[in-house]
């Protein structure tokens, strides 16, 4: 009985409908008072029910309990850590303030969403295996590709890095937790909410406008489109809250001696990413709000009849969504630097250049949004500056590639699964980066726009880029999270199947695009038959390879051989505590005495605990 009063999922079962019902009644009253016609408009009520039900869910899960007591001046027990740390599996389904628990919650949830989004892709790939329409309708095809893109980007690609960062970053900088543990928990719990809302769109006729949802097409979509907008706003709130948390944590919570240039590169990458999220994500929320007002309130932001312009949506949307592609890959860059330095046993080549290139990408990322709109009819004078800015981004990215190759060069490269994924990432990302440079040039882009070449490009950078870094990170920190080793043979099998199938899936799309096959169309000309068959078979193999990963992770987490504190012989702080780390990470606050990647030097340390003999060697940043 008390379970429905304490902060649990059970409490959400009544707070969510309660908040939704109150909002609906208030809306009904307001509509009646102001004499709106008709008073009963189903979509309006559903919209407010979803928005306020979401708030009710956060209240139910316990996101507001502490703050409410504090702000109303109630008594608080500052030493109450009952919500911190997991003692059983049930604690993972509760409001938990431990950054390690939240990290695992994030990773498991986002990976489930990855499987869901992948399943959507397998379904429409099956349809695309042969020319002509076989199993699904055109409308269902549009809904599937839209759900695939939205689920993958907003509930997997952006938050999975928040999950990895959540687990690793406080450990890396020697902090006991994130700066705002409760905010951290709230930002996680917003995410399942966003996922449920995005998936529940299928109940009302799902959105079928792609993940970009341009007006005026989206004005004609069923109610699912509004749920898309609410879901994206909630997922965006989640990532803003996480980014605020990361920024404050990395700036203010570092252990003594951890100067900026002694931070591991993942911290730099997360710093740049979080700055991007804070400054850019509100723009997509703004675009979504305006589009939602157009749909549900009859305003004319993006329809011509009231003097609005559909192009404005594209500007505001891409002002977020181009920085978003760096949000989706910069933390991955950081992971790769960690993995390669550790497994090649060499200091990162050009540490400062890599750190600054992250910041450079973050700044430049704001000046290139309109390269998504070369063919949209925007002001033509914008084209050339945007083209040059886009080409310029290849420079900081190239610095990073150069650094990774230079780090491996002459190192003792251990081909563990994590490192294989890192190397595979470099190969795939260079392919995706090169096609990106091609697309940056306006004449080429105009002739190839909206073709499969675009699909090939962004899947090489998002799958070949981001997803491979995610796997590299999973394998690299798996021993730290579970305290057990994964099965290296299965891991390598997973890598090779993934890597070959990835190229089999996405490489032929370059050819298709150059030959003129349009994207987002359920049927195609017969001459693309064989290449689409190859792609579909590869896509199925790619999907199957994920099952190897899932089996490996679940089996190894329970039966793998014990890993010990530091199986990779890494120098950074997270490997100096037991695996899995104690609830409050560090029993004594560590003191950082040198750079994080000083491999190959005899007896040097990145950090010491106060009871140890300090090793004082000043070589910052190496």
């Amino acid at each position, binding site marked *: 009985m008390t379970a429905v009063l304490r902060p649990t999922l059970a409490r959400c079962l009544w707070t969510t409908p309660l908040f939704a019902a109150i909002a609906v009644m208030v809306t009904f009253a307001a509509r009646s008072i102001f004499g709106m016609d008709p008073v009963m408009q189903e979509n309006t009520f559903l919209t407010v029910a979803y928005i306020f039900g979401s708030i009710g869910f956060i209240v139910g899960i316990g996101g507001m309990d502490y703050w409410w007591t504090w702000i109303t001046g109630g008594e608080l027990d*500052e030493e109450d*850590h009952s919500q911190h740390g997991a003692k059983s599996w049930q604690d993972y389904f509760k409001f938990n303030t431990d950054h390690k628990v939240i990290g695992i919650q994030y990773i498991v949830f986002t990976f489930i969403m990855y499987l869901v989004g992948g399943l959507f892709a397998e379904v429409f790939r099956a349809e695309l295996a042969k020319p002509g329409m076989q199993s699904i309708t055109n409308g269902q095809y549009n809904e599937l590709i839209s759900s695939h893109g939205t689920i993958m980007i907003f509930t997997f690609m952006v938050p999975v890095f928040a999950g990895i960062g959540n687990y690793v970053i406080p450990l890396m900088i020697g902090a006991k937790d994130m700066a705002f543990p409760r905010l951290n928990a709230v930002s996680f719990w917003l995410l399942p909410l966003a996922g449920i809302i995005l998936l529940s769109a299928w109940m009302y006729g799902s959105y079928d406008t792609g993940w970009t949802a341009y007006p005026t097409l989206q004005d004609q979509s069923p109610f699912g489109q509004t749920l898309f907008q609410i879901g994206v706003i909630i997922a965006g709130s989640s990532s803003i809250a996480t*980014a605020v948390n990361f920024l404050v944590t990395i700036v203010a919570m570092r252990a003594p001696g951890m100067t900026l240039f002694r931070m591991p590169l993942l911290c730099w990458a997360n710093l740049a990413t979080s700055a991007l999220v804070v*400054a850019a994500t509100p723009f997509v929320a*703004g675009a979504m709000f305006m589009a939602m007002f157009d749909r549900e*309130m009859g305003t004319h932001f993006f329809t011509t009849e009231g003097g609005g*312009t559909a192009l404005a949506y594209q500007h*505001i949307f891409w002002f977020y969504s181009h920085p978003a592609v760096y949000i989706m890959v910069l933390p991955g860059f950081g992971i790769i630097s960690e993995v390669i330095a550790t497994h090649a046993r060499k200091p990162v080549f050009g540490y400062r250049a890599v750190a600054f290139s992250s910041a450079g990408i973050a700044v430049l990322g704001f000046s290139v949004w309109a390269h998504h709109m070369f063919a949209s009819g925007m*002001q033509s004078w914008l084209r050339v500056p945007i083209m040059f800015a886009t080409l310029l981004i290849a420079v900081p990215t190239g610095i990073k590639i150069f650094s990774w190759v230079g780090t491996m060069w002459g190192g003792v490269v251990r081909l563990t699964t994590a490192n294989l994924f890192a190397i595979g990432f470099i190969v795939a990302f260079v392919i995706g980066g090169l096609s990106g440079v091609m697309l940056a040039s306006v004449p080429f882009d105009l002739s190839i726009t909206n073709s499969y070449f675009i699909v090939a490009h962004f899947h090489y950078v998002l799958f070949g880029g981001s997803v491979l870094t995610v796997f590299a990170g999973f394998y690299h920190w798996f021993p730290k999270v579970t305290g057990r080793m994964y099965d290296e043979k299965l891991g390598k099998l997973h890598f090779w199947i993934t890597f070959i199938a990835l190229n089999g899936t996405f490489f032929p799309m370059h050819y298709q695009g150059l030959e003129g096959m349009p994207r987002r169309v359920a049927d195609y000309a017969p001459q693309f038959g064989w290449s689409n068959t190859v792609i579909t078979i590869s896509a199925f193999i790619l999907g199957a390879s994920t099952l190897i990963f899932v089996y490996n992770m679940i089996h190894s987490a329970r039966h793998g051989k014990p890993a010990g504190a530091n199986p990779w012989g890494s120098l950074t702080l997270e490997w100096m505590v037991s695996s899995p780390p104690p609830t*409050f990470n560090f029993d004594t606050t560590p003191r950082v005495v040198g750079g994080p990647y000083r491999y190959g030097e005899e007896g040097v340390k990145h950090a010491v605990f106060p009871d140890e003999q300090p090793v004082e060697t000043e070589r910052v940043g190496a």
Partner: protein
Amino acid sequence: MAAADMSTPKIQPYKTNLNVCVMGLIIFLVSELALFGAFFMYYANLRLARGVEWPGDFHIPAEATSINTLILVVSSFTCEFALLSLDKKGKGSRVFAWLFVTFILGSIFLGLQVYEYMTIGFTPQDTSVGAIFFSLTGLHGLHVFVGLLLLGLGMIRAVRGRWSPDNHVGLLGISVYWHFVDIVWVILFAVVYCLPSS
């Protein structure tokens, strides 16, 4: 040292003099500014790039609203006085009084905004200029409303005697938020109400 760390796993900032909560709030307000930025971007696109004007022969009530602007700017000072009266080790009642004055000024501002909505002569549904006018001022009004809630909660804590010179981070946060609302309004007033028609 070791034992102390074990028993107090509280979050301690290592490096900075700025309180972490206020730092977090400021970063959050940067993202709030970006949210306003999305609407300002649309507005700039409409008025500057495309030269769309207010509907018909309509004139935006800049003169009336400048009084409203003055009220909000004054409320920013009274909000700061609440913090100052705290630093002079005044009682909770003085903090309460200044917060209450700020609350009243904010309420007057919000009331005048609602009055302007009712008398302005066009609706959000009429044209896209109407939509962006109501969105910008409405989004700001929502922030004023949230600010009033925060001021109200600050008053509750003041009545209960929870603010002291050693424990005033929350009050500082309320004040920073209220200043933000004020600054955004000044920008908004300048670009929406004072931008001359071309």
